Protein backbone atom coordinates (compact mmCIF):
# COMPACT_ATOMS: atom_id res chain seq x y z
CA UNK A 1 0.00 0.00 0.00
CA UNK A 2 1.60 3.29 -1.10
CA UNK A 3 1.48 6.53 0.99
CA UNK A 4 -1.45 8.06 -0.93
CA UNK A 5 -3.45 4.84 -0.65
CA UNK A 6 -2.81 4.49 3.10
CA UNK A 7 -3.68 8.16 3.70
CA UNK A 8 -6.98 7.77 1.80
CA UNK A 9 -7.77 4.53 3.68
CA UNK A 10 -7.29 6.32 7.01
CA UNK A 11 -9.18 9.45 5.95
CA UNK A 12 -12.09 7.58 4.35
CA UNK A 13 -12.53 4.21 6.12
CA UNK A 14 -15.05 1.72 4.70
CA UNK A 15 -18.55 2.49 6.01
CA UNK A 16 -21.57 0.22 6.41
CA UNK A 17 -25.27 0.49 7.26
CA UNK A 18 -26.43 3.80 8.73
CA UNK A 19 -22.98 5.39 8.53
CA UNK A 20 -22.84 4.66 4.80
CA UNK A 21 -26.34 6.08 4.24
CA UNK A 22 -25.37 9.18 6.23
CA UNK A 23 -22.19 9.63 4.17
CA UNK A 24 -24.15 9.29 0.90
CA UNK A 25 -26.72 11.82 2.12
CA UNK A 26 -23.90 14.16 3.14
CA UNK A 27 -22.28 13.86 -0.30
CA UNK A 28 -25.59 14.61 -2.04
CA UNK A 29 -26.09 17.64 0.22
CA UNK A 30 -22.53 18.82 -0.47
CA UNK A 31 -23.15 18.48 -4.25
CA UNK A 32 -26.36 20.52 -4.03
CA UNK A 33 -24.60 23.22 -1.99
CA UNK A 34 -21.72 23.16 -4.49
CA UNK A 35 -24.07 23.68 -7.43
CA UNK A 36 -25.88 26.52 -5.64
CA UNK A 37 -22.58 28.22 -4.77
CA UNK A 38 -21.34 27.83 -8.36
CA UNK A 39 -24.53 29.38 -9.69
CA UNK A 40 -24.17 32.32 -7.27
CA UNK A 41 -20.56 33.03 -8.25
CA UNK A 42 -19.68 35.55 -10.97
CA UNK A 43 -19.12 33.98 -14.42
CA UNK A 44 -15.34 34.46 -14.46
CA UNK A 45 -14.85 32.90 -11.02
CA UNK A 46 -17.08 29.99 -12.00
CA UNK A 47 -15.08 29.49 -15.17
CA UNK A 48 -11.82 29.44 -13.21
CA UNK A 49 -13.15 26.80 -10.79
CA UNK A 50 -14.49 24.60 -13.59
CA UNK A 51 -11.21 24.94 -15.52
CA UNK A 52 -9.24 23.92 -12.41
CA UNK A 53 -11.41 20.86 -11.74
CA UNK A 54 -11.26 19.85 -15.44
CA UNK A 55 -7.48 20.15 -15.42
CA UNK A 56 -7.09 18.07 -12.24
CA UNK A 57 -9.47 15.39 -13.55
CA UNK A 58 -7.53 15.11 -16.81
CA UNK A 59 -4.20 15.23 -14.98
CA UNK A 60 -5.00 12.04 -13.08
CA UNK A 61 -5.09 9.80 -16.18
CA UNK A 62 -2.13 11.61 -17.75
CA UNK A 63 0.02 11.12 -14.64
CA UNK A 64 -1.13 7.54 -14.18
CA UNK A 65 -0.08 6.80 -17.76
CA UNK A 66 3.26 8.64 -17.75
CA UNK A 67 4.61 7.97 -14.24
CA UNK A 68 7.15 5.12 -14.17
CA UNK A 69 5.63 1.75 -13.27
CA UNK A 70 7.08 -1.08 -11.16
CA UNK A 71 7.46 -4.73 -12.14
CA UNK A 72 3.69 -5.27 -11.64
CA UNK A 73 3.06 -2.43 -14.12
CA UNK A 74 1.73 -0.21 -11.35
CA UNK A 75 2.69 3.21 -10.03
CA UNK A 76 1.59 5.41 -7.14
CA UNK A 77 -1.77 6.28 -8.79
CA UNK A 78 -2.70 2.91 -10.33
CA UNK A 79 -4.69 1.77 -7.28
CA UNK A 80 -7.22 4.59 -7.88
CA UNK A 81 -7.98 3.80 -11.54
CA UNK A 82 -11.03 1.54 -10.85
CA UNK A 83 -12.45 4.10 -8.38
CA UNK A 84 -11.99 6.99 -10.81
CA UNK A 85 -13.65 4.82 -13.48
CA UNK A 86 -16.66 4.44 -11.18
CA UNK A 87 -16.72 8.19 -10.53
CA UNK A 88 -16.88 8.89 -14.28
CA UNK A 89 -19.79 6.45 -14.56
CA UNK A 90 -21.63 8.27 -11.76
CA UNK A 91 -21.01 11.60 -13.51
CA UNK A 92 -22.37 10.07 -16.73
CA UNK A 93 -25.48 8.96 -14.83
CA UNK A 94 -25.96 12.50 -13.57
CA UNK A 95 -25.91 13.84 -17.14
CA UNK A 96 -28.80 11.47 -17.89
CA UNK A 97 -30.67 13.04 -14.98
CA UNK A 98 -29.96 16.49 -16.39
CA UNK A 99 -31.41 15.36 -19.72
CA UNK A 100 -34.57 14.16 -18.01
CA UNK A 101 -34.92 17.44 -16.09
CA UNK A 102 -34.46 19.39 -19.32
CA UNK A 103 -37.14 17.31 -21.09
CA UNK A 104 -39.58 17.83 -18.19
CA UNK A 105 -38.91 21.59 -18.15
CA UNK A 106 -39.38 22.12 -21.89
CA UNK A 107 -42.30 19.75 -22.47
CA UNK A 108 -43.93 20.58 -19.12
CA UNK A 109 -44.01 24.23 -20.19
CA UNK A 110 -45.54 23.21 -23.55
CA UNK A 111 -48.35 21.38 -21.75
CA UNK A 112 -48.99 24.06 -19.12
CA UNK A 113 -49.12 26.85 -21.72
CA UNK A 114 -51.09 24.64 -24.17
CA UNK A 115 -48.65 25.48 -26.95
CA UNK A 116 -49.00 24.03 -30.44
CA UNK A 117 -48.30 20.28 -30.32
CA UNK A 118 -48.83 20.09 -26.55
CA UNK A 119 -50.45 16.68 -27.03
CA UNK A 120 -47.10 15.29 -28.21
CA UNK A 121 -45.36 16.78 -25.18
CA UNK A 122 -47.98 15.25 -22.91
CA UNK A 123 -47.55 11.84 -24.56
CA UNK A 124 -43.78 12.07 -24.14
CA UNK A 125 -44.04 12.94 -20.44
CA UNK A 126 -46.62 10.24 -19.71
CA UNK A 127 -44.56 7.62 -21.61
CA UNK A 128 -41.43 8.63 -19.74
CA UNK A 129 -43.11 8.35 -16.34
CA UNK A 130 -44.80 5.01 -17.15
CA UNK A 131 -41.56 3.50 -18.51
CA UNK A 132 -39.53 4.76 -15.54
CA UNK A 133 -42.03 3.44 -12.98
CA UNK A 134 -42.26 0.10 -14.82
CA UNK A 135 -38.47 -0.22 -14.96
CA UNK A 136 -37.83 0.74 -11.34
CA UNK A 137 -40.80 -0.87 -9.58
CA UNK A 138 -41.95 -3.72 -11.85
CA UNK A 139 -38.75 -4.80 -13.63
CA UNK A 140 -39.44 -8.53 -13.42
CA UNK A 141 -43.09 -8.42 -14.46
CA UNK A 142 -44.90 -8.97 -17.74
CA UNK A 143 -45.93 -5.30 -17.63
CA UNK A 144 -42.34 -4.08 -17.96
CA UNK A 145 -41.27 -6.78 -20.41
CA UNK A 146 -44.24 -5.98 -22.61
CA UNK A 147 -43.52 -2.26 -22.55
CA UNK A 148 -39.83 -2.81 -23.22
CA UNK A 149 -39.91 -5.70 -25.70
CA UNK A 150 -43.24 -5.25 -27.46
CA UNK A 151 -43.53 -1.48 -27.53
CA UNK A 152 -40.17 0.28 -27.15
CA UNK A 153 -38.08 -2.28 -29.06
CA UNK A 154 -40.65 -2.57 -31.84
CA UNK A 155 -40.77 1.21 -32.29
CA UNK A 156 -36.98 1.39 -32.22
CA UNK A 157 -36.57 -1.38 -34.80
CA UNK A 158 -39.33 0.02 -37.02
CA UNK A 159 -37.77 3.51 -36.98
CA UNK A 160 -34.44 2.10 -38.13
CA UNK A 161 -35.99 -0.23 -40.70
CA UNK A 162 -37.66 2.73 -42.39
CA UNK A 163 -34.14 3.88 -43.34
CA UNK A 164 -33.90 1.01 -45.83
CA UNK A 165 -36.76 2.51 -47.83
CA UNK A 166 -35.16 5.94 -47.88
CA UNK A 167 -31.79 4.47 -48.90
CA UNK A 168 -33.35 2.70 -51.88
CA UNK A 169 -35.19 5.86 -52.93
CA UNK A 170 -32.12 8.08 -52.39
CA UNK A 171 -29.77 5.73 -54.27
CA UNK A 172 -32.15 5.66 -57.24
CA UNK A 173 -32.46 9.45 -57.34
CA UNK A 174 -28.96 10.59 -56.37
CA UNK A 175 -26.46 7.97 -57.56
CA UNK A 176 -25.76 9.39 -61.02
CA UNK A 177 -22.64 8.53 -63.01
CA UNK A 178 -21.61 11.97 -64.25
CA UNK A 179 -17.80 11.78 -64.01
CA UNK A 180 -14.86 9.36 -64.07
CA UNK A 181 -14.67 9.49 -60.26
CA UNK A 182 -18.38 8.69 -59.92
CA UNK A 183 -17.92 5.76 -62.33
CA UNK A 184 -15.00 4.45 -60.28
CA UNK A 185 -17.01 4.77 -57.08
CA UNK A 186 -19.98 3.03 -58.68
CA UNK A 187 -17.92 0.12 -59.99
CA UNK A 188 -16.10 -0.32 -56.64
CA UNK A 189 -19.38 -0.20 -54.72
CA UNK A 190 -20.98 -2.68 -57.09
CA UNK A 191 -18.10 -5.16 -56.81
CA UNK A 192 -17.83 -4.87 -53.01
CA UNK A 193 -21.57 -5.30 -52.50
CA UNK A 194 -21.81 -8.19 -54.97
CA UNK A 195 -18.85 -9.84 -53.27
CA UNK A 196 -20.69 -9.70 -49.94
CA UNK A 197 -23.86 -11.50 -51.01
CA UNK A 198 -24.45 -15.10 -52.13
CA UNK A 199 -26.16 -14.02 -55.37
CA UNK A 200 -23.11 -11.94 -56.34
CA UNK A 201 -20.68 -14.65 -55.27
CA UNK A 202 -22.64 -17.18 -57.34
CA UNK A 203 -21.80 -15.27 -60.55
CA UNK A 204 -18.16 -16.33 -60.29
CA UNK A 205 -18.47 -19.42 -58.12
CA UNK A 206 -17.23 -21.65 -60.96
CA UNK A 207 -13.77 -20.08 -60.75
CA UNK A 208 -11.22 -21.73 -58.42
CA UNK A 209 -11.22 -20.36 -54.83
CA UNK A 210 -7.41 -20.16 -54.66
CA UNK A 211 -4.24 -21.58 -56.18
CA UNK A 212 -4.76 -20.16 -59.67
CA UNK A 213 -4.63 -16.74 -61.30
CA UNK A 214 -8.26 -17.27 -62.27
CA UNK A 215 -9.18 -17.15 -58.56
CA UNK A 216 -8.27 -13.45 -58.61
CA UNK A 217 -11.33 -12.88 -60.79
CA UNK A 218 -13.78 -14.25 -58.24
CA UNK A 219 -16.06 -11.45 -57.04
CA UNK A 220 -15.58 -12.31 -53.36
CA UNK A 221 -11.78 -12.17 -53.83
CA UNK A 222 -11.93 -8.85 -55.69
CA UNK A 223 -14.26 -7.48 -53.00
CA UNK A 224 -11.87 -8.63 -50.27
CA UNK A 225 -8.90 -7.12 -52.15
CA UNK A 226 -10.71 -3.77 -52.44
CA UNK A 227 -11.53 -3.79 -48.73
CA UNK A 228 -8.09 -4.84 -47.50
CA UNK A 229 -5.74 -3.24 -50.05
CA UNK A 230 -7.58 -0.14 -51.23
CA UNK A 231 -9.97 0.69 -48.41
CA UNK A 232 -7.67 -0.06 -45.43
CA UNK A 233 -4.89 2.45 -46.35
CA UNK A 234 -7.51 5.13 -46.99
CA UNK A 235 -9.12 4.40 -43.62
CA UNK A 236 -5.67 4.50 -41.99
CA UNK A 237 -5.00 7.92 -43.49
CA UNK A 238 -8.37 9.21 -42.26
CA UNK A 239 -7.63 7.67 -38.85
CA UNK A 240 -4.29 9.52 -38.63
CA UNK A 241 -6.02 12.81 -39.39
CA UNK A 242 -8.77 12.11 -36.88
CA UNK A 243 -6.23 11.07 -34.25
CA UNK A 244 -4.23 14.29 -34.56
CA UNK A 245 -7.41 16.36 -34.55
CA UNK A 246 -8.69 14.43 -31.54
CA UNK A 247 -5.45 15.05 -29.64
CA UNK A 248 -5.66 18.78 -30.33
CA UNK A 249 -9.30 18.91 -29.21
CA UNK A 250 -8.53 16.85 -26.09
CA UNK A 251 -5.73 19.25 -25.11
CA UNK A 252 -7.97 22.25 -25.69
CA UNK A 253 -10.72 20.78 -23.52
CA UNK A 254 -8.29 19.68 -20.80
CA UNK A 255 -6.69 23.13 -20.62
CA UNK A 256 -10.11 24.84 -20.96
CA UNK A 257 -9.03 26.66 -24.10
CA UNK A 258 -12.14 25.55 -25.96
CA UNK A 259 -14.53 28.40 -26.50
CA UNK A 260 -18.26 27.81 -26.27
CA UNK A 261 -20.83 30.48 -27.05
CA UNK A 262 -22.82 29.74 -23.87
CA UNK A 263 -19.79 29.55 -21.60
CA UNK A 264 -18.15 32.71 -22.94
CA UNK A 265 -21.43 34.63 -22.85
CA UNK A 266 -22.01 33.65 -19.22
CA UNK A 267 -18.44 34.66 -18.30
CA UNK A 268 -18.80 38.01 -20.07
CA UNK A 269 -22.09 38.80 -18.33
CA UNK A 270 -20.36 39.39 -15.00
Amino acid at each position, binding site marked *: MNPIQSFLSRAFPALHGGALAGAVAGCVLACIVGVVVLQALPGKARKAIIAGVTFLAGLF*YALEFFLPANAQD*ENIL*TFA*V*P*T*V*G*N*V*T*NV*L*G*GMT*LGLGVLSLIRIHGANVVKVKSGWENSMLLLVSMVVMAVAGIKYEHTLFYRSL*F*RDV*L*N*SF*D*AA*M*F*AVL*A*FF*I*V*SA*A*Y*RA*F*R*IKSAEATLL*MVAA*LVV*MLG*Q*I*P*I*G*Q*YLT*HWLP*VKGSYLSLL*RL*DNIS*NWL*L*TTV*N*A*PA*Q*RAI*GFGLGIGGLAIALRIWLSLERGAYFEAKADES
Partner: protein
Amino acid sequence: MSNLGHPLTRINRHWLYGALLAIVVIGLIVPISLPLAVSPEATRFYEAIESAPKDKLVLVSTLWSASTQGENRPQTQVVLKHLMKRHLRFALIAFGDAQATTLAQELAEEQAAIYKYEYGKDWINLGYRQDIAGTLKGMVRNINETLKTDSVNRRPLAEYPVMAGVRNVKDLSVIAEFSASGNYKSWVGLVVGSTDAAFCYAPTSVMAPELYTYLDSGQIRGMLFGIKGAAEYEQMMNEKGFTTRAITPVSLALVLLFVLIGLGNYGMYATKKMEGNS
Protein backbone atom coordinates in the same frame (compact mmCIF):
# COMPACT_ATOMS: atom_id res chain seq x y z
CA MET B 1 -35.59 5.72 -76.37
CA SER B 2 -36.43 9.30 -75.67
CA ASN B 3 -39.90 8.30 -74.48
CA LEU B 4 -38.43 5.57 -72.28
CA GLY B 5 -35.69 7.69 -70.71
CA HIS B 6 -37.78 10.38 -69.16
CA PRO B 7 -40.20 8.24 -67.12
CA LEU B 8 -37.31 6.16 -65.77
CA THR B 9 -35.98 9.15 -63.89
CA ARG B 10 -39.38 9.77 -62.34
CA ILE B 11 -40.49 6.50 -60.82
CA ASN B 12 -42.82 7.29 -57.94
CA ARG B 13 -41.11 6.56 -54.63
CA HIS B 14 -44.11 4.54 -53.44
CA TRP B 15 -43.38 1.99 -56.18
CA LEU B 16 -39.80 1.78 -54.93
CA TYR B 17 -40.97 1.25 -51.35
CA GLY B 18 -43.45 -1.38 -52.53
CA ALA B 19 -40.78 -3.22 -54.54
CA LEU B 20 -38.41 -3.33 -51.55
CA LEU B 21 -41.14 -4.54 -49.20
CA ALA B 22 -42.22 -7.24 -51.65
CA ILE B 23 -38.66 -8.43 -52.21
CA VAL B 24 -37.88 -8.64 -48.49
CA VAL B 25 -41.10 -10.55 -47.74
CA ILE B 26 -40.60 -12.94 -50.66
CA GLY B 27 -36.95 -13.44 -49.68
CA LEU B 28 -37.95 -14.41 -46.14
CA ILE B 29 -40.70 -16.78 -47.29
CA VAL B 30 -38.75 -18.39 -50.14
CA PRO B 31 -35.05 -18.50 -49.18
CA ILE B 32 -32.63 -19.09 -52.05
CA SER B 33 -30.05 -21.67 -51.11
CA LEU B 34 -26.74 -20.44 -52.50
CA PRO B 35 -23.23 -21.13 -51.19
CA LEU B 36 -21.66 -18.33 -49.16
CA ALA B 37 -17.88 -17.85 -49.26
CA VAL B 38 -16.50 -17.53 -45.73
CA SER B 39 -14.26 -14.49 -45.33
CA PRO B 40 -10.81 -14.73 -43.67
CA GLU B 41 -11.83 -12.32 -40.89
CA ALA B 42 -14.91 -14.40 -39.97
CA THR B 43 -12.73 -17.52 -39.98
CA ARG B 44 -10.31 -15.85 -37.53
CA PHE B 45 -13.23 -14.88 -35.24
CA TYR B 46 -14.44 -18.49 -35.25
CA GLU B 47 -10.95 -19.85 -34.65
CA ALA B 48 -10.40 -17.48 -31.71
CA ILE B 49 -13.46 -18.97 -29.96
CA GLU B 50 -12.68 -22.49 -31.11
CA SER B 51 -9.17 -22.36 -29.67
CA ALA B 52 -10.04 -20.48 -26.45
CA PRO B 53 -8.80 -22.36 -23.35
CA LYS B 54 -11.55 -23.57 -21.01
CA ASP B 55 -9.89 -22.25 -17.85
CA LYS B 56 -10.21 -18.62 -18.93
CA LEU B 57 -13.23 -16.34 -19.19
CA VAL B 58 -14.64 -14.98 -22.47
CA LEU B 59 -15.92 -11.40 -22.25
CA VAL B 60 -18.91 -10.64 -24.47
CA SER B 61 -19.50 -6.92 -24.80
CA THR B 62 -22.69 -5.63 -26.40
CA LEU B 63 -23.43 -2.14 -27.63
CA TRP B 64 -26.60 -2.46 -29.65
CA SER B 65 -30.25 -1.71 -29.24
CA ALA B 66 -33.39 -2.80 -31.04
CA SER B 67 -32.60 -0.43 -33.92
CA THR B 68 -29.67 -2.55 -35.16
CA GLN B 69 -30.86 -5.90 -33.83
CA GLY B 70 -31.40 -7.09 -37.40
CA GLU B 71 -27.63 -7.52 -37.66
CA ASN B 72 -26.27 -7.46 -34.12
CA ARG B 73 -28.74 -9.91 -32.61
CA PRO B 74 -27.92 -12.85 -34.95
CA GLN B 75 -24.20 -12.11 -34.54
CA THR B 76 -24.46 -12.23 -30.74
CA GLN B 77 -26.72 -15.28 -30.83
CA VAL B 78 -24.47 -17.38 -33.04
CA VAL B 79 -21.34 -16.62 -30.99
CA LEU B 80 -23.12 -17.31 -27.67
CA LYS B 81 -24.24 -20.61 -29.15
CA HIS B 82 -20.65 -21.44 -30.06
CA LEU B 83 -19.43 -20.53 -26.55
CA MET B 84 -22.02 -22.78 -24.96
CA LYS B 85 -21.33 -25.63 -27.36
CA ARG B 86 -17.70 -25.49 -26.30
CA HIS B 87 -18.66 -25.17 -22.61
CA LEU B 88 -16.68 -21.95 -22.22
CA ARG B 89 -17.64 -19.69 -19.34
CA PHE B 90 -18.46 -16.14 -20.32
CA ALA B 91 -19.45 -12.74 -18.95
CA LEU B 92 -21.73 -10.19 -20.59
CA ILE B 93 -21.10 -6.48 -20.32
CA ALA B 94 -22.86 -3.58 -22.07
CA PHE B 95 -21.93 -0.05 -23.01
CA GLY B 96 -23.45 2.82 -24.92
CA ASP B 97 -27.14 1.95 -24.82
CA ALA B 98 -28.95 0.84 -21.67
CA GLN B 99 -31.13 -1.50 -23.79
CA ALA B 100 -28.04 -3.53 -24.66
CA THR B 101 -27.73 -5.30 -21.32
CA THR B 102 -31.40 -6.41 -21.27
CA LEU B 103 -31.35 -7.61 -24.87
CA ALA B 104 -28.11 -9.55 -24.36
CA GLN B 105 -29.48 -11.04 -21.13
CA GLU B 106 -32.59 -12.27 -22.99
CA LEU B 107 -30.46 -13.85 -25.70
CA ALA B 108 -28.16 -15.53 -23.19
CA GLU B 109 -31.13 -16.86 -21.18
CA GLU B 110 -32.65 -18.35 -24.36
CA GLN B 111 -29.44 -20.18 -25.22
CA ALA B 112 -28.66 -21.07 -21.58
CA ALA B 113 -31.97 -22.95 -21.35
CA ILE B 114 -30.99 -25.04 -24.39
CA TYR B 115 -27.40 -25.75 -23.35
CA LYS B 116 -28.14 -26.08 -19.60
CA TYR B 117 -25.92 -23.17 -18.68
CA GLU B 118 -26.19 -22.08 -15.08
CA TYR B 119 -26.16 -18.40 -14.16
CA GLY B 120 -23.27 -17.55 -11.86
CA LYS B 121 -21.47 -20.82 -12.55
CA ASP B 122 -21.17 -20.82 -16.33
CA TRP B 123 -22.08 -17.27 -17.22
CA ILE B 124 -22.76 -13.90 -15.65
CA ASN B 125 -24.06 -10.46 -16.62
CA LEU B 126 -21.77 -7.63 -15.49
CA GLY B 127 -24.38 -5.05 -16.49
CA TYR B 128 -24.38 -1.70 -18.26
CA ARG B 129 -21.80 1.02 -17.81
CA GLN B 130 -22.29 4.51 -19.14
CA ASP B 131 -18.63 5.49 -19.46
CA ILE B 132 -16.60 3.07 -21.54
CA ALA B 133 -13.16 4.67 -21.21
CA GLY B 134 -13.17 4.93 -17.41
CA THR B 135 -14.61 1.42 -17.07
CA LEU B 136 -12.10 -0.18 -19.44
CA LYS B 137 -9.17 1.50 -17.73
CA GLY B 138 -10.45 0.14 -14.43
CA MET B 139 -10.95 -3.36 -15.87
CA VAL B 140 -7.37 -3.41 -17.08
CA ARG B 141 -6.36 -3.15 -13.40
CA ASN B 142 -9.11 -4.99 -11.54
CA ILE B 143 -12.44 -6.24 -12.88
CA ASN B 144 -14.08 -7.04 -9.52
CA GLU B 145 -13.13 -3.69 -8.02
CA THR B 146 -14.33 -1.76 -11.07
CA LEU B 147 -17.64 -3.54 -11.69
CA LYS B 148 -18.28 -4.74 -8.10
CA THR B 149 -21.64 -6.55 -8.61
CA ASP B 150 -23.55 -8.39 -11.32
CA SER B 151 -26.66 -6.89 -12.87
CA VAL B 152 -29.09 -9.74 -12.13
CA ASN B 153 -28.75 -10.39 -8.37
CA ARG B 154 -26.63 -7.35 -7.44
CA ARG B 155 -24.24 -9.58 -5.54
CA PRO B 156 -20.45 -9.10 -5.31
CA LEU B 157 -18.69 -10.65 -8.31
CA ALA B 158 -16.23 -12.50 -6.07
CA GLU B 159 -19.12 -14.68 -4.80
CA TYR B 160 -19.72 -16.21 -8.25
CA PRO B 161 -17.79 -19.36 -9.30
CA VAL B 162 -17.72 -18.10 -12.92
CA MET B 163 -15.45 -15.24 -11.84
CA ALA B 164 -12.97 -17.52 -10.04
CA GLY B 165 -9.39 -16.75 -11.04
CA VAL B 166 -10.39 -13.61 -12.92
CA ARG B 167 -8.57 -10.51 -11.66
CA ASN B 168 -8.19 -8.31 -14.73
CA VAL B 169 -8.24 -8.39 -18.54
CA LYS B 170 -5.11 -10.58 -18.56
CA ASP B 171 -7.34 -13.43 -17.36
CA LEU B 172 -9.59 -13.30 -20.41
CA SER B 173 -9.15 -15.57 -23.44
CA VAL B 174 -11.35 -13.71 -25.92
CA ILE B 175 -13.02 -10.30 -25.91
CA ALA B 176 -15.92 -10.24 -28.38
CA GLU B 177 -17.74 -6.99 -28.97
CA PHE B 178 -21.06 -6.76 -30.83
CA SER B 179 -21.62 -3.16 -31.71
CA ALA B 180 -23.57 -0.60 -33.64
CA SER B 181 -20.96 2.09 -33.11
CA GLY B 182 -17.24 2.82 -33.24
CA ASN B 183 -16.47 1.49 -29.79
CA TYR B 184 -13.55 -0.59 -31.02
CA LYS B 185 -11.22 2.42 -30.68
CA SER B 186 -11.65 2.38 -26.89
CA TRP B 187 -10.92 -1.35 -26.73
CA VAL B 188 -7.91 -1.10 -29.05
CA GLY B 189 -6.55 1.99 -27.30
CA LEU B 190 -7.10 0.96 -23.69
CA VAL B 191 -7.30 -2.83 -23.45
CA VAL B 192 -5.78 -4.73 -26.39
CA GLY B 193 -2.19 -3.78 -25.50
CA SER B 194 -2.64 -4.99 -21.90
CA THR B 195 -3.78 -8.55 -22.58
CA ASP B 196 -3.10 -11.57 -24.77
CA ALA B 197 -6.85 -12.09 -25.22
CA ALA B 198 -8.00 -12.14 -28.84
CA PHE B 199 -10.14 -9.07 -29.52
CA CYS B 200 -12.88 -9.84 -32.05
CA TYR B 201 -15.43 -7.39 -33.36
CA ALA B 202 -18.89 -7.76 -34.85
CA PRO B 203 -20.17 -4.46 -36.24
CA THR B 204 -23.06 -3.59 -38.52
CA SER B 205 -22.23 -3.82 -42.25
CA VAL B 206 -22.06 -0.07 -42.67
CA MET B 207 -19.27 0.19 -40.08
CA ALA B 208 -17.22 -2.80 -41.15
CA PRO B 209 -14.97 -1.16 -43.81
CA GLU B 210 -13.32 1.11 -41.25
CA LEU B 211 -12.09 -1.89 -39.25
CA TYR B 212 -9.81 -3.36 -41.92
CA THR B 213 -6.88 -1.21 -40.86
CA TYR B 214 -7.05 -2.74 -37.36
CA LEU B 215 -7.54 -6.25 -38.77
CA ASP B 216 -4.45 -5.64 -40.88
CA SER B 217 -2.40 -4.69 -37.79
CA GLY B 218 -3.72 -7.69 -35.83
CA GLN B 219 -5.16 -5.50 -33.07
CA ILE B 220 -8.56 -6.87 -34.04
CA ARG B 221 -8.21 -10.64 -34.52
CA GLY B 222 -11.46 -11.37 -36.33
CA MET B 223 -14.61 -9.66 -37.54
CA LEU B 224 -18.17 -10.53 -38.51
CA PHE B 225 -19.24 -8.29 -41.40
CA GLY B 226 -22.85 -7.50 -40.43
CA ILE B 227 -25.46 -10.18 -40.91
CA LYS B 228 -23.38 -11.73 -43.66
CA GLY B 229 -20.66 -12.37 -41.06
CA ALA B 230 -23.23 -14.04 -38.81
CA ALA B 231 -24.33 -16.27 -41.71
CA GLU B 232 -20.69 -17.19 -42.36
CA TYR B 233 -20.25 -18.05 -38.68
CA GLU B 234 -23.38 -20.20 -38.78
CA GLN B 235 -21.97 -21.98 -41.82
CA MET B 236 -18.71 -22.72 -39.98
CA MET B 237 -20.77 -24.20 -37.16
CA ASN B 238 -22.57 -26.39 -39.71
CA GLU B 239 -25.91 -24.87 -38.81
CA LYS B 240 -28.69 -23.39 -40.89
CA GLY B 241 -30.68 -21.02 -38.73
CA PHE B 242 -32.46 -17.73 -39.18
CA THR B 243 -29.28 -15.92 -40.20
CA THR B 244 -28.70 -18.18 -43.19
CA ARG B 245 -32.31 -17.58 -44.27
CA ALA B 246 -32.08 -13.83 -43.65
CA ILE B 247 -29.21 -13.43 -46.08
CA THR B 248 -31.64 -14.01 -49.01
CA PRO B 249 -33.71 -10.81 -48.53
CA VAL B 250 -30.47 -8.89 -47.95
CA SER B 251 -29.12 -10.20 -51.27
CA LEU B 252 -32.34 -9.45 -53.12
CA ALA B 253 -32.57 -5.94 -51.65
CA LEU B 254 -29.05 -5.18 -52.86
CA VAL B 255 -29.88 -6.53 -56.33
CA LEU B 256 -32.94 -4.25 -56.36
CA LEU B 257 -30.67 -1.37 -55.40
CA PHE B 258 -28.32 -2.11 -58.33
CA VAL B 259 -31.24 -2.38 -60.75
CA LEU B 260 -32.72 0.92 -59.59
CA ILE B 261 -29.37 2.71 -59.80
CA GLY B 262 -28.97 1.29 -63.31
CA LEU B 263 -32.47 2.41 -64.33
CA GLY B 264 -31.91 5.88 -62.89
CA ASN B 265 -28.68 6.30 -64.82
CA TYR B 266 -30.14 4.88 -68.03
CA GLY B 267 -33.01 7.35 -67.65
CA MET B 268 -30.56 10.21 -67.19
CA TYR B 269 -28.63 9.34 -70.37
CA ALA B 270 -31.83 8.79 -72.33
CA THR B 271 -33.06 12.20 -71.21
CA LYS B 272 -29.78 13.83 -72.22
CA LYS B 273 -29.96 12.17 -75.62
CA MET B 274 -33.57 13.27 -76.01
CA GLU B 275 -32.62 16.85 -75.17
CA GLY B 276 -29.67 16.66 -77.60
CA ASN B 277 -31.93 15.54 -80.46
CA SER B 278 -34.54 18.24 -79.88
